[in-house]
């Protein structure tokens, strides 16, 4: 971490923030310290982890109880030194979760809002240039309610970036967008930052965004940073297998990691050299040994080959046995490995399931639970 700071001293943001909220019985304390160089740094964590509070402290909208915030050598806040720059003078670009576009102003007026110190002509020129680079040049005269969600996100980004900020704070800016729109906007953002090279703090609680965007991730939980590193490093480690956990899985197999798809947040795992499953990504290397647990009730069973599925794993097999246990039917299926599948009585009857029949097992990626090999 330290060495990275030295090379990008000029523009990295360093923050150490303590903020306590006492609210009756509920109290929350944010206590974090980190350094983020130029480029995208993901702040990942569940809602209520303190991500937005942290951004508000950096922007100057919330005053920390203690700490120090600086961009390069420029101090924004220093409790000990008695420095607390006004929001207006921090040069922070902030895209809020709900965007906070001014509803009574046009797209052009929204984007030009932060350029009030420039002359009218220069303001129009800069506004036009950034609208163009975010591909919303033709929307200048419209009001925020008259454009689509993706276009509004672009306007909010352009409005924050046109002021040439020293740090960009993005609070779940793309959460409401579909994947295609999202990746196009991220592409434009990366393009912009290739030229400007400022730190971008990107808040999200979505695993997919972490893997799609991040070179660096800070994982925030309950007001503390619990992990930092690349997405691969910080995402969940395989769980320690305990007797209690084992009891929850009817199917537990030894597996070997065949491939890691960090961009998609998944891995391929081979079981006994016979079956390959797509599983969620955990901290592991290619070739490392894990165990995969799958609940019998999480597996779908089809008697004809299903098509057009979102589930990533489709495994052919043969029914070995079908037995009734109270009101549950337990089928054992041989796919090279023997897998237990549970279903209702009605499901068995409508499928007309019997031993020897050919079936397909459908298993969602996230139904595969990875555990450490014992």
């Amino acid at each position, binding site marked *: 971490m330290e060495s990275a700071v030295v090379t990008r001293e000029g523009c990295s943001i360093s923050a150490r923030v303590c903020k306590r909220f006492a609210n009756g019985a509920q109290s929350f304390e944010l206590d974090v310290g980190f350094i983020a160089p130029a480029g995208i740094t993901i702040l990942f964590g569940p809602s209520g982890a303190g991500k937005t509070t942290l951004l508000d402290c950096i*922007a*100057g*909208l919330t005053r920390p109880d203690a700490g120090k915030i600086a961009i390069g050598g420029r101090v924004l806040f220093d409790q000990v030194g008695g420095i607390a720059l006004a*929001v*207006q*003078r*921090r*040069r*922070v*670009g*902030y895209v*809020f979760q*709900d965007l*906070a*576009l*001014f*509803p*009574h102003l046009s797209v052009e007026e929204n984007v030009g*809002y*932060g350029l*009030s*110190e420039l002359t009218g002509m220069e303001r129009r020129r800069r506004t036009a240039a950034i609208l163009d680079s975010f591909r919303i040049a033709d929307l200048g005269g419209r009001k925020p309610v008259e454009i689509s969600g993706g276009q509004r996100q672009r306007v909010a980004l352009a*409005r*924050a970036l046109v*002021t040439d900020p020293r740090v960009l704070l993005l609070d779940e800016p793309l959460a409401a967008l579909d994947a295609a729109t999202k990746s196009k906007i991220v592409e434009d953002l990366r393009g912009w930052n290739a030229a400007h090279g400022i730190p971008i703090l990107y808040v999200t609680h979505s695993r997919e965004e972490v893997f799609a965007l991040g070179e660096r991730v800070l994982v925030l939980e309950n007001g503390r940073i619990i992990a930092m590193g690349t997405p691969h490093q910080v995402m969940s480690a395989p769980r320690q297998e305990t007797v209690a956990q084992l009891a929850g899985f009817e199917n537990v197999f030894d597996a070997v990691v065949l491939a890691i798809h960090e961009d998609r947040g998944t891995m391929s795992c081979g079981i006994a050299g016979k079956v390959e499953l797509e599983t969620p990504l955990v901290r592991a290397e290619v070739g490392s040994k894990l165990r995969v647990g799958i609940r019998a009730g999480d597996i779908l069973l089809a008697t004809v080959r299903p098509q057009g599925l979102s589930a990533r794993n489709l495994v052919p097999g043969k029914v070995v046995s079908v037995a009734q246990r109270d009101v549950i039917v337990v089928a054992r299926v041989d796919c090279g490995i023997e897998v237990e599948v549970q279903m209702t009585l009605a499901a068995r009857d409508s499928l007309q399931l019997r031993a020897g029949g050919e079936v397909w097992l459908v298993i969602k990626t996230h139904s595969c639970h990875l555990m450490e090999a014992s």
Partner: protein
Amino acid sequence: MDWQAFWLTLRLAVLVALVLAVAGLPVAYWISFSRWRWKFVAEAVVALPIVLPPTVLGFYVLLALGPRSPVGRFWQGLTGHTLAFTFGGLVIGSIIYSLPFAVQPFAASFAAVDGRLIAASETLGASRLRTFFRVILPLSVPGLVTGVVLSFAHTLGEFGVVLMVGGDIPGVTRTVSIDIYDKVQSVDYAAANATALVLLAISFLVLCLVYALNRRVWAILTGK
């Protein structure tokens, strides 16, 4: 009908509404955004004219304007005459009397502006003043109109304060409501009725306007 009284009342109401439209803004801003611990005291003072009998308010305004109070003495030293029983005194009394009717709708509409919009304005480098004029004020237009119209209408029909502060001087302090009272006192019910009807109609129309605005009928009417 006493058109002189109508004209005087109209001048008074317009003047008071205009003054409050300007002077009410900083008061309302402060009430909406101040985090001062004792703010509630100031809020109570501003709201006092709503509950106070107008005669009580008028009585103290009269004392304050009179030559025995420091304010009255100061004014007399400055201009050579007292404000009591003048149109100017009437304006001052009416401004205090109608203050909550302007300030409260203003403050409510300021407070209703999304805090994130104000935060966005500030992160974009806009000063408090610029944020107020470019974001808060434009988004508070219905509340501003309500406040101005209400203070206008409230001044239009006031009686107690006017009687205490201004007395009943034709062309100087005799407003419509005092005129009506005079006519009833002299048992000229027909004339009182005519004047009262006009006042009733105006008040009703003004309130219709306020409620129409609040239901955003205004937006439909102006085609926006």
